[in-house]
């Protein structure tokens, strides 16, 4: 028996995360577990209820820390939507999934009467995609700070070369040895050197 396409609404101001999630759901949609999915995305949350009503979703996926959730939950309580979505937490039967969702920062609202297995596979995908996005973010962050470290070390080397009249290699060796002796990171030492150098009148070497 073919199942009716499940309508999923992603509410996320972060376009990258929404795209990662959408792609994950599309891949899952080709599997058997969740059946066909119809995916919608709302990026900004103005006039939320009318837009949700227009989509009439079976499942709403939203970042746990999205401040629009207060508005959303109250709207569900008072609205005359034919099918009122309820927070996934209300179903206590699958607490492991719920815990995993909270850990990943996922929150979901699901209309009543939906088969648990279908919702569960969607949630599993969402959780893993949220984690993937977090990893991406921290890799990006690491790459950014590595780049900044390299820049500051270059500046510190230039100051040393100018002040001590040494070569670039010698300046680096000096930095590294001093950092090691003081049990600090090279970038950290370079940062204090550059900061302190700004206070001192730099001698011009002839």
């Amino acid at each position: 028996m073919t199942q009716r396409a499940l309508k999923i609404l992603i509410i996320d101001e972060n376009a990258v995360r929404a795209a990662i999630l959408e792609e994950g759901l599309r891949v899952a949609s080709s599997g058997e577990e969740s059946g066909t999915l119809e995916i919608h995305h709302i990026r900004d949350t103005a006039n939320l209820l009318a837009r949700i009503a227009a989509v009439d979703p079976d499942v709403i996926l939203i970042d746990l820390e999205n401040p629009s959730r207060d508005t959303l939950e109250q709207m569900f309580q008072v609205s005359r939507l034919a099918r009122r979505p309820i927070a996934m937490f209300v179903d206590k039967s699958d607490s492991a999934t719920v815990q995993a969702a909270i850990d990943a920062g996922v929150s979901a609202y699901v209309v009543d009467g939906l088969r648990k297995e279908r919702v569960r596979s969607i949630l599993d995908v969402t959780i893993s995609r949220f984690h993937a996005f977090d990893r991406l973010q921290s890799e990006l962050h690491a790459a950014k700070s590595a780049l900044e470290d390299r820049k500051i070390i270059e500046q510190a080397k230039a100051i040393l070369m100018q002040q001590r009249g040494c070569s670039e290699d010698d300046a680096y060796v000096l930095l590294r040895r001093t950092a090691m002796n003081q049990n600090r990171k090279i970038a950290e030492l370079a940062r204090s050197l550059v900061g302190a150098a700004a206070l001192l009148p730099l001698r011009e070497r002839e």
Partner: protein
Amino acid sequence: MTERIVAAFVPLVDCAVLVAAREQGFAAEEGLDLVLVKEPSWASLRDHLSLGHVDCAHALAPLPVALTLGVGHVQVDCSAPFVLGRGGNAVTVSNRLFDEMQGAAAFTDPLETARALAAVARRRVPPLTLGMVFPFSNHNFDLRYWLAAAGLHPDRDVRLIAIPPPLMVDHLRAGLVDGFCVGEPWNSLAVAQGLGSIVATQSQLFPRAAEKVLAFRSAFAEQSQSIAKLLRALDAAAAWVDEPSNHAALASLLAQPSYLDLPSEIIAPALAGRVHFASGADVSDRSFLYFHRHAANEPREADGLWAYAQMVRWGQLAASERAERCAATVFSPALYRASVRDVRTTTRPGPFSFDRIEFVAKDVPAYLRQFDVHTPFADARAQ
């Protein structure tokens, strides 16, 4: 050995007792490492509390009642053994709405102010939109009660919308709401930015109301040895917070990015009970927001029953004796009395209301029968 307790909070002046307990060393004195986690919204705070991601939370007084009764969310037994603040909310309206209300009200009598608001509301198409912070909040209940006293039906004659406190002022600026009921400093911020005027305060509407409580999951409260220590630390912190000579230091603490992230000048007036009222003058109201005096910290069963009664009045819950007992138990003073050595006995009676309708905690059904305006009562059989 220090024990670690994690508490969630929403950035508001009335998280002051938790902040002081951590920053002024009151928690450390009891051997506790009190960790504070900022939440962007009440739904997020509730989820982290109900699933045990935090040990306790700075909570809207009706929130642990709703959780215990399983209304609007998963059912989790909670207790509220400590009141973190009484009062502190206010109603702010946009400049346009204020202009329309003027002439009709002197803003000293809340009932007269409500009538002026009602006169505008009846003319407005589309209806006035007013912000409050959460379905289970004094803000929602106070606004509804106040509007209904002027003959408005809060479900039909206006539109109420839940907005997290830090986003309230943005919504007013963008014209998405005509006014709101929120805790400080968000009213003072709207006034300072020239976006609106304060027309009523919680201390006018419902003096001495329990506004924020420290909420625990009962399961945690039963197995933890640290709660008594925490309550003692909070009691000492609350005494410090209530002392006017500490208010400048407290305002700078709260101003920090990890807490309210606002200039201390915006935070200080609420601590001093100085409200820049619609009339243009600063009104000095010592009972606007208080943290310790008049036995403020001791929970009272009547506080829980008041929240229960409002939930029934507005159709969130079907009345039942079982629910009534649960709501009272959430606010049991037993743990506070057992933990805090120096319990003051001069508890003031309450809660009170601006319309002089007495809240009778002993007979909630009779109390509710006095009101003409209410949401059709929920059916007990449907629960």
